[in-house]
């Protein structure tokens, strides 16, 4: 088999790994942010929650930053077209993300309740909004985005930003939000004392049920919309641009990969199973197991979208033939090869020291210690 083709498929899988990493790790902290004012009733409870993720939020957030960098490096045309096309939404995402580090670091530096309340709302917004936008962006990819290219691959977006908030995408955003609330709730079950842990357990349990319903509704919806199908293109593993293919719309087309390879139904099933057993473990109070099952659900959900769309990544609703696929938006062989090398060396290292950091900080946070510590958040 051709090396370039192998690298292309590998980087398609790695894109999925990146989204799962982003969903589980960043999503977990975002979920804590979303829940901050609901399961943390007093200032001390909120500080306890923030300090429970305090040692980790910065490291986790790098999944998000790495996400941007890796898409830039591996799929330059996706990075360029999606970030500029979804302009207003991406800026809202960015702005809600950049107030977050300040929220953690600055919130408890002043005793004033008004100051702390303002940062609490900031943290809530910067927890919920990015997850909604992350899901909504995925939803828009399934629905197709109105853009086309000029002869030199300058991308032109022709929709308004309101169209990005179509009902399907908003539901997808809510799915992503509920998964993140689930992860955040499970995290608080393990790291926060009562009564926070009990409230977190209730929140995680509701979030799991909401995610199951939303995932099912979105699944049915997707089966009824138009999917995209490549009619002709230069071929997989061949350097090309999106100007050289023909694509047609097929009703229910996003199910064709599942119909061709029924074994792939296992992927959405994995999502449902992860959520269902996750819900059971939350009920049973087994937070570590529930966390890992949450990660499994993320793999199932991201995987379901990936399998449905393969090889499409960003279909164009206004000019389907110029849709971006894995084959026409990926980097050159040299770049992919080098990036693979760096990934093979550093990703295991990242997993190792992240686990070490979680191990060092294991156990429940003691609110008295938080109050006593001038360095705490």
């Amino acid at each position, binding site marked *: 088999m051709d090396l370039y083709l192998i690298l292309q498929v590998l980087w398609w899988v790695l894109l999925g790994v990146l989204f799962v990493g982003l969903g589980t790790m960043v999503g977990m902290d975002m979920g804590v942010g979303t829940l901050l004012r609901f399961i943390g*009733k007093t200032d001390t409870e909120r500080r306890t929650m923030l300090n429970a993720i*305090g*040692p980790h939020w*910065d*490291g986790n957030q*790098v999944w998000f*930053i*790495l996400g*941007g*960098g*890796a898409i830039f*490096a*591996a*799929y*330059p045309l996706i*990075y*360029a*077209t*999606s*970030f*500029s096309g979804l*302009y*207003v939404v*991406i*800026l809202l995402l*960015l702005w809600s*993300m*950049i*107030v*977050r*580090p*300040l929220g953690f670091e*600055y919130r408890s*530096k*002043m005793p004033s*309740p008004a100051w702390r309340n303002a940062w609490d709302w900031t943290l809530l917004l910067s927890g919920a909004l990015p997850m909604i936008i992350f899901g909504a962006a995925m939803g828009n990819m399934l629905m197709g985005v109105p853009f086309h290219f000029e*002869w*030199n691959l*300058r*991308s032109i977006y022709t929709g308004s930003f309101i169209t990005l908030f179509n009902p399907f995408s908003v539901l997808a955003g809510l799915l992503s939000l509920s998964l993140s609330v689930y992860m955040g709730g499970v995290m608080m079950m393990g790291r926060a004392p009562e009564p926070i842990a009990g409230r977190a357990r209730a929140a995680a349990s509701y979030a799991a049920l909401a995610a199951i319903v939303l995932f099912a509704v979105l699944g049915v919806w997707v089966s009824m919309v138009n999917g995209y199908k490549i009619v002709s293109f230069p071929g997989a593993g061949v*350097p090309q641009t999106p*100007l*050289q293919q023909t694509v047609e719309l097929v009703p229910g087309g996003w199910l064709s990969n599942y119909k061709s390879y029924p074994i792939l139904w296992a992927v959405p099933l994995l999502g449902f199973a992860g959520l269902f057993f996750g819900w059971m473990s939350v009920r049973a109070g087994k937070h570590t197991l529930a966390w890992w099952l949450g990660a499994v659900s993320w793999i199932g959900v991201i995987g379901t979208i990936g399998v449905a769309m393969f090889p499409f990544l960003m279909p164009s609703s206004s000019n389907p033939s110029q849709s971006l696929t894995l084959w026409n938006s990926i*980097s*050159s062989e*040299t*770049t992919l090869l*080098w*990036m693979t090398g*760096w990934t093979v060396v550093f990703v295991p290292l*990242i997993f190792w020291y992240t686990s070490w950091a979680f191990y*060092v*900080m294991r156990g429940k946070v003691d609110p008295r*210690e*938080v*109050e*006593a*510590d*001038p*360095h705490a958040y």
Partner: protein
Amino acid sequence: MIDTLVVDLSRWQFASTALYHFLFVPLTLGISFMIAAMETVYVTTGKTIYRDMTQFWGKLFLINFVLGVATGLTMEFEFGTNWSFYSGFVGDIFGAPLAIEGLMAFFMESTMIGMMVFGWKRLSKGQHLLVTYLVAIGSNLSALWILVANGFMQDPQGAAFNPVTMRMELTNFGALIFSHDAQAKFVHTSIAGYVTAAIFVAGVSAWYMMRNRHMELARRSFRMAALFGVLSTAGVITLGDALGFVGGHAQPSKLAAMEAMWQTEQAPAPFNVVAWPSQSEQKNIWSIQVPYVLTPLLTHTMTQVVPGIDQIEADATTRIKNGIPAVEALKALSKDPKDAAAMAQFKAHEKDLGYGFLVTRYAPDQDVSKATDADIAKAAKDTIPQVNVIFWTFRIMVGLGLLMLAYFIYATMLSISGKLEQPQNRWFLKFAPWMIPVPFLACEMGWVVAEVGRQPWTVFGMLPTWMSASSHSVGYMIFSLVGFVSLYSIFIAVEMFLMVKAIKQGPEQHGTPSTPVIPQSRKPQPSFGGGFAPNPAAPMSAHKE
């Protein structure tokens, strides 16, 4: 059609968000190593004053660090949101260092910073020291990869344009990362960060010494900063010279603008110490020159001719004419990648493709095949960046660098001879805090020289800035500008407020200071902090809602 106003607004937005981000980065780069050095002394000697120093400067470091992280996110997004043509055109090369920065440096730095803040009680002394070093190394490695990416924009090494995929692609990874421009710039920039941190630490310490507060901590921090500062400032000046030397070969237009050299002169050429350059008249209205100095300064020889602006423009005219057929051939290839005649034409002219792009903005209907000689002349004039801006920002940067060198030499002498606290030297303690803005200004000036000097290109000689921006409406640009201005104004106000508050509050007071400290007019703080030190006596403000 490309709207020039959108391009200009995108440029202003990028410049201001980058300059803003660069207010926080240099301090992070330097102070992280100073903290690691302080902690090293603590771990090796066991003197608790060094632990106090580590924690106090660590607190200020964090207030600064989060804004560096937050505003850095903007930069990573902005290539895609506002410079999407650029991103698609060079992402194959430019994206790699950004991704590797995340994998190798930023992940480690960010994970370890959590351990550094929260790990005091949970890690052994040695482990904590290691964590602190990893933070410092991580932040500096971040700078390395970002400057490798920037080095590519300044001097595109290790890449070639591929007409089949319509973009530049990586051909040689080694050439990309070991580009002389990237390497010289990394060392120059990171050491500039060390200078910034040294001035900051020295200034804050002097402020305490003036008020006779925290004398043990301030004295030691000042001496450390002074020594660190002398070495770093000497380094930054040496490396700046190397960068000028390297950059001069890659970008003669930047060099000519830095020196306001309108005409090519015989070697050894005179050096303009100060001048008032006029872009429209293509000459210096007035100048003070030193004969023979420029050539050895820039080329490190007496005989090599440095090209002036007249010659650079003439060369550009030739290259634009040669580049137009390359653009036309590329257009044909876009319709049919198998068009052999077009491919042959492209191959014959490809080295001047970027210059062909350059005339697009002046050609009728933005179609290069219709370009007249007048259009080509305009495009050729564009290859010279704004001379007065670069000439002066460069001189301000160098002047501030020399001022800081003198400051550090004097500070080191005073500190080592023990005369710093004598009454006749109180003026110096008063003066030192006023030096704090100087390195920040110098860093910003350096950025302007590098990036305005690169114009009219985003990737030098390959991709004009004018083509690189996204095709947005003016309304979108105003929307984002308003958002950034509001958020960033709040950020800087909050940051300065907390920083000043933390400095005024001073370090935590610990059990038994090694020398008596002047009593403070504030409540005692809980003992040795960090981690989750159980201390029920601590009077923290635990308000309940």
